[in-house]
């Protein structure tokens, strides 16, 4: 079993990465937020409302990136039998779901000033909505079994099935959107000028750094949770004789 297989080795690297990721997150937020809120110029069409983009676009990007990481972890677990790859996927899923939800809500908050309606059946926003349901399915399936490892394996299969279906869903929604929707409603109308790039980069890297930090903490938490479950079920499975003799001897 290659050396990243057991968690102590894996966590040693994760813990080493944590301070760096935290550093990147803090710096990028400190650079990105003032740029996003104050420095970069108002958009000539939308005025200040476009500043929501600096939350909307990074969270959309994170929603997709985290799902691909989940697919990678699930494939590593199912196909290459990597014993803890599924933990990365299980630890990332809630993060991905929250980023996708954040993308949807900020999209609605942006839609209202731009087009007068909170929800716009724009192709990309609709695809993000579908991605959110895939996350919900993954989270629900993972928790639906008594045997936790059965949940891990089932959720891993679902993540791979979802990954195959996501492009098909996006293609269908894209085609459906052009069929029913006049093009003025699409997000494509936004042209990103040069000085908008830097705040966007800063925010994207801030989100990514934040994801890595929370992932490391959640991995620690998942590994501890498995150890707690193991300790409890090990005691439950002790043969009758062992527990009775231990009890009669009393505490040492």
């Amino acid at each position, binding site marked *: 079993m290659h050396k990243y297989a*057991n*968690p*102590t080795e894996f966590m040693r690297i994760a813990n080493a990465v944590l301070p760096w990721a935290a550093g990147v997150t803090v710096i990028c937020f400190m650079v990105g937020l003032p740029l996003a809120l104050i420095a970069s110029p108002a958009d000539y069409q939308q005025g200040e409302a476009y500043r929501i983009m600096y939350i909307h676009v990074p969270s959309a990007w994170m929603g997709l990136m985290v799902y691909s990481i989940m697919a990678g972890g699930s494939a590593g677990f199912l196909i290459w039998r990597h*014993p*803890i790859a599924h933990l990365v996927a299980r630890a990332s899923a809630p993060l991905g779901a929250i980023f996708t939800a954040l993308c949807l809500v900020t999209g609605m908050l942006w839609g209202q000033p731009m087009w007068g309606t909170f929800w716009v059946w724009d192709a990309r926003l609709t695809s993000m909505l579908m991605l959110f349901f895939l996350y919900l399915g993954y989270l629900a399936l993972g928790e639906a079994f*008594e*045997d*936790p*490892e059965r949940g891990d394996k089932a959720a891993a299969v679902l993540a791979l099935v979802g990954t195959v279906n996501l492009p098909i869903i996006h293609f269908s929604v894209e085609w459906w959107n052009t069929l029913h929707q006049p093009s003025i409603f699409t997000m494509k109308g936004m042209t990103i000028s040069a000085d908008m790039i830097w705040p966007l980069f800063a925010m994207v890297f801030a989100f990514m750094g934040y994801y890595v930090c929370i992932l490391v903490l959640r991995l620690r938490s998942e*590994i501890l949770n*498995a*150890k707690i*479950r*193991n*300790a409890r*079920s*090990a005691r439950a*499975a002790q*043969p*009758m004789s062992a527990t009775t003799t231990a009890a009669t001897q009393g505490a040492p």
Partner: protein
Amino acid sequence: MGAEGFEQATFSGTGLACRRGGRTVFADLAFNLENGGALVLRGANGSGKTTLLRLMAGLSVPTAGQLAWNGTDAFDDPDAHGARTRFVGHLDGLKPSMTAAENLAFAAQLWGDGTAARVGGALEAFGLGRLAELPVRVLSAGQRHRLALARLMVVPAPLWLLDEPGNALDDDSQRALARVIADHRARGGMIVVAAHGAAPMSDGMTLDVSSFAAAIPPHWSDAA
């Protein structure tokens, strides 16, 4: 029963480990079975007898070790291993709305050439002849269990795996089971039985599954 014997084969397991309910149940478990061999699995509840039987059937995948049939890994071709195995677990695997004869006829078609002759013989061997046309839902638990055991004989297969077959059986059925097993072994078949009380055969090798609990290697989720 047909006179044909089974071809020469050895069924063995080396260094087998398996997880169940988030816990390694046994580790470094080994066994070896030749033609005509019988293995009786002993061990307390939860020691992994059923898990081991399902692993031998290829239904569960071991986390370590190798299950070999004539030296080749059984999991290289799970379908072939499934075809040479008959497994009778706690669940009878019978369709309540189908009659006893239909259930066995389905097994005959699924596993073999589907000749009805063997179905009748199988039912007779376990005293179910007059119940052949009754839907399974009206049969008692004991009768259903005997029907599940009768299914073993419908299409010959070299490897029989029985999970506590004796529990719901009365004395006549116990004797019928012992006769059927003896005949199976006489034709070169192998059998593994998980049993608490008396095993359906007297000369079987014994394997205490709980004795393999000690060798469980540390898993990353152990509390150490």
